[in-house]
């Protein structure tokens, strides 16, 4: 347990470590780097994008992005470069592949299943038999409890 805590502390402190301002070159290039790094996951702090993370690896990878953008490579080429090294996990938006079919299609399948269940339940409820009308004994009981003078039939209709 203590070990786990230590690991958490270390990784959290690694994430915040070593803030360094990006050297601003061309605003357009910076914009592209920013957009790219928002699509990419920092592997040290796995729930942060490369843009948000200040882990040392994230800085190195941003530097790589900068160099590759400067070298005139396209966004797809740069993303491929990182996927080749770190796998699909580095992308925040996983690609559609046999292994990710469940991930992409699953929610819609669940939604469709839920809709089917809803329709089935509603149908069954509509088909349920209505309450039978009150017999003479029951009518007499109602009159005794609620008092005479009220027309019994109206009450029947209004009864839940």
């Amino acid at each position, binding site marked *: 347990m203590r070990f786990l805590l230590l690991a958490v502390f270390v990784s959290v402190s690694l994430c915040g470590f070593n803030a360094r301002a990006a050297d601003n070159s061309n605003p357009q290039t910076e914009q592209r780097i920013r957009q790219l790094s928002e699509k990419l996951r920092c*592997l040290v702090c796995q729930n942060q994008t490369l843009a948000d993370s200040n882990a040392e690896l994230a800085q*190195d990878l941003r530097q790589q992005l900068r160099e590759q953008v400067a070298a005139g490579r396209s966004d797809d080429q740069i993303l491929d470069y990182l996927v080749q090294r*770190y796998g699909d996990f580095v992308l925040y938006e996983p690609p559609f592949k046999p292994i990710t079919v469940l991930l992409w299609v699953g929610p819609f399948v669940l939604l469709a299943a839920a809709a089917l269940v809803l329709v089935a339940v509603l149908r069954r409820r509509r088909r349920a038999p209505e309450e039978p009308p009150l017999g003479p004994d029951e009518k007499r009981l109602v009159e005794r409890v609620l008092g005479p003078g009220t027309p019994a039939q109206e009450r029947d209709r209004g009864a839940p």
Partner: protein
Amino acid sequence: MKRFLWPLAIFILLVGFLAVGLKLDPREVPSPLVGKPAPEFALPVLHQPDKRFAPGDMRGKVWLLNVWASWCVSCREEHPVLLDLAKRDVMPILGLNYKDKGEDAQRWLKQFGDPYQLSVVDADGRIGIDYGVYGVPETYLIDGEGVIRYKQIGPLTQAILDQKVLPLAKALKK
């Protein structure tokens, strides 16, 4: 009674998914490099900076590439395992000294022992990126053709060595 069967079944299914999910380690990202040729490099050797080493030099051998650094705490944890493996002379272990200072690295090896045939220096971490390194220590098992066969993220333990790495290395040597 029957109306409770469905919710119960769904509940058990959900518990099953969560139980499996608990056992998965999110830090273990499957490496796309396994089954691919180890990325080339030519880096200076730690103890002889004027000499360079390239993975091609190990052609025909099954070997381990261990990424380490003197600032890496988990490396100390796995170090005895590597020292023991080196003593048994099972296969060559090479070090990739990742984003470290030369003096610190040499002092560290002097203090804890040196299991490496040699260590190469990746001072700016550029080669580390080619190998998909994101958490030191990491260890790669590379076969005689220069193909990565296994990647260990985090410290090697005796159990992982005995159960995965050594049997695989033995099979690859044939």
